[in-house]
């Protein structure tokens, strides 16, 4: 059924969640799971930083806003892709603030049928207010 979206809900922050402090163990486990061996990602010490995609670990406590159209079954869905703008790397001891906004909703058809696409933007900053990442997450729902 065609999708009706209230444009006013786009861009509104619907969640703010804080994570951390990040531990060295978390950073290392993530990098090693990707097969990384670079010491800057896998060895404890002052030079340790998070793998560039470490930011995908974070999301809001509420995944979608209350205002998401009820046509969309938010309980079932698949990750359709991500766009990540990277800022400063994550370091041990950082706290990460994640602010969530509904960026876009649209409908299209593909191999698996008719789907709704929901794009949620996570804007992530650390305790110094520095931008860690802006992640646009595209989820598809039938």
């Amino acid at each position: 059924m065609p999708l009706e979206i209230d444009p006013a809900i786009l861009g509104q922050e619907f969640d703010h969640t804080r994570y951390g402090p990040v531990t060295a163990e978390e950073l290392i486990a993530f990098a090693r799971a990707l097969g990384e061996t670079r010491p800057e990602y896998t060895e404890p010490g002052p030079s340790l930083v998070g793998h560039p995609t470490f930011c995908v670990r974070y999301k809001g406590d509420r995944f979608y806003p209350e205002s998401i159209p009820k046509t969309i079954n938010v309980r079932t869905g698949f990750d359709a892709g991500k766009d990540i703008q990277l800022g400063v790397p994550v370091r041990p001891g950082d706290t990460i603030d994640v602010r969530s906004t509904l960026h876009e909703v649209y409908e299209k058809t593909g191999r698996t049928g008719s789907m709704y696409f929901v794009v949620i933007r996570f804007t992530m900053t650390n305790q110094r207010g520095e931008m860690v990442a802006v992640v646009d997450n595209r989820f598809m729902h039938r």
Partner: protein
Amino acid sequence: MARRFEDAEEGDELPTRELFIAKDQVRAYARAANQWAPRFTDDEGARREGLPGMITPGNMSMGLLTTLIEAWAGPGVLRRLGTTFRGLVLPGRTIRLCGTVTQKDERTRTVELDVWLESDEGERLVIGTATVALA
């Protein structure tokens, strides 16, 4: 050490990486990435969701593509990575990570890359582009 901007040309191909994605590696990633869910950890649990078996998280595919990029460009130079997950990446199989340089920007000393993950049969399961700041 980052690759020098002068050493990259439009059309350059990144060295292809071929690797076998083991189920245990996918489980380790799912745990480390806070994505512990049946679809990523258990064949039977994944089938109950209508999947053919456990699948590799799209985020993990992005991470693997990042390793490809950094192997060519050096660490810490990725500025943007955008991906579309077009097909299921099933663990227990060999995949290839590929990339090419598509554009150079003299003003910002960045290059644009096409990157993709393909199955051992050549199907492009994850496609994307990346912006990399070279030295």
